């Protein structure tokens, strides 16, 4: 297919997508609701969930931030390990199952993230990033070249060694990191470097923060750090401010290693993402890699899309959280 044929067909296909009249009516309703003063609505999902799985005891967790933020519409209650979900908690920690494709016969499909198969494991687009200019210094030994071939409708058998959905590109180890955790795609085209990191955060058991953050070796390696409010992030404003309290940051990073892992699915089902009580921190490491962490006001931290949250010791979390003020 040539480019112009694609453009023409794609435009025609997309032109046929029309929103329904209900969308406009729904917007008018939502706008009306927003104009009315309202009290925060709390979803009793935690109660329902607890009842459903026979939990009778009190929550292991308390709200850290007092009154809900104005935009907050739901509160969540991290469950103790064992509450199930795609990343299931066990007495030994949170088990993140190996990524497997959905059964094609059910008609289900999955959202595609950029991925590479290496040594039988699926490495997905990393929450750690590097600038192209710094990639060469981090590039380790060549591990192979991807073959492409995976798409939304691939079956499990298509996940052969170095298959990917990012086309054909060279894959390298990353200096300073284990290739069982992090690999890099690296290309030089017309003198320009194109590099991305891919991480293996599935098919593993996480017993504490060290099992994930230890692989990034954060402590003592942060060269600079910034934070961004949710409002800025959500609106693409990129209004970053320096994290000026280095003591609070060091304490937080230390506490990360002993943080308690919690399966993500129960928390997302309870509406943790419905709250805007979030802040994002960007840690520039001494090797120029940038690690992004999302902090939730309830005292939780998430790294990328790994289906696990970490409950950080409250004093260390709160000290960092409180240092991030506009």
């Amino acid at each position, binding site marked *: 297919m040539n480019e112009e044929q694609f453009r023409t067909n794609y435009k025609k296909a997309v032109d046929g997508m029309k929103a329904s009249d209900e969308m406009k009516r*729904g917007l008018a309703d*939502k706008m009306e609701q927003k104009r009315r003063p309202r009290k925060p609505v709390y979803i009793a999902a935690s109660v329902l969930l607890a009842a459903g799985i026979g939990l009778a005891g009190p929550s292991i967790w308390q709200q850290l931030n007092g009154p809900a933020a104005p935009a907050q519409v739901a509160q969540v209650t991290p469950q103790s390990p064992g509450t199930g979900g795609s990343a299931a908690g066990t007495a030994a920690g949170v088990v993140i199952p190996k990524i497997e494709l959905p059964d094609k016969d059910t008609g289900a499909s999955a959202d595609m993230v950029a991925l590479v198969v290496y040594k039988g494991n699926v490495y997905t687009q990393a929450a750690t990033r590097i600038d192209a200019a710094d990639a060469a210094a981090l590039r380790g030994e060549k591990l192979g070249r991807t073959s492409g071939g995976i798409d939304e409708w691939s079956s499990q058998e298509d996940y052969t060694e170095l298959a990917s959905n990012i086309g054909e590109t060279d894959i390298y180890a990353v200096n300073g990191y284990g290739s069982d955790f992090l690999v890099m795609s690296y290309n030089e085209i017309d003198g320009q470097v194109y590099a991305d990191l891919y991480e293996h955060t599935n098919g593993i058991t996480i017993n504490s923060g060290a099992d994930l953050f230890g692989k990034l070796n954060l402590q003592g390696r942060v060269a600079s750090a910034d934070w961004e409010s949710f409002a800025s992030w959500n609106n693409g404003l990129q209004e970053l401010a320096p994290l000026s309290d280095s003591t609070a940051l060091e304490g937080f990073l230390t506490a990360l290693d002993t943080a308690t892992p919690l399966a993500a699915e129960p928390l997302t089902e309870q509406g943790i993402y419905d709250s805007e009580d979030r802040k994002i921190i960007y840690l520039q490491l001494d090797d120029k890699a940038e690690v992004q962490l999302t902090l939730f006001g309830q005292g939780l931290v998430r790294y990328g899309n790994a289906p696990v949250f970490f409950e950080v010791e409250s004093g260390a979390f709160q000290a960092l959280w409180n240092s991030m003020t506009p």
Partner: protein
Amino acid sequence: MQRSMTRPGQHVMKSYEQYAEMLFRIALVHLGSREDAEEATQDTFIKLMEKAPAFQDEEHQKAWLIRVITNHCKNLLGRGWRKREVKLEGMEPAAAGNPEELAVLQLVMAMPVKYRTVIHLYYYEDYPIQKISEILRISESAVKMRLRRGRQLLKLELEGAESE
């Protein structure tokens, strides 16, 4: 500066008439579900009402809306390996009459999200690379790379003068 309407929300509905279909299509390409795309579009206009940013001109507003809905979709998708029970829901009927059109749509939907946005803005909205870079706030080099990878995944044969 725009936005000097007498009734709160009036400017939002005016913007809705102008941009709703465009935003809905972007959301549909990201989310693959009519219901989710309509909700994402509504949420974007709610943000416009609540944040009420001052825009320099129409293009500035359009770019803001595209960036907001793109981030909103990424936020939704980032919640996990979200399964869609109905593949390309709401998209087949539009392209059902023409297998080639449906095929290209399916090819785009099969791409990782970060390539879809750039492909859509370049081939549907006809934005040049520099403009996509401004809208998405990523480097021109990143836009070029995503276009290159996107074309590779779509197996496109490039024609004539290349705009990169």
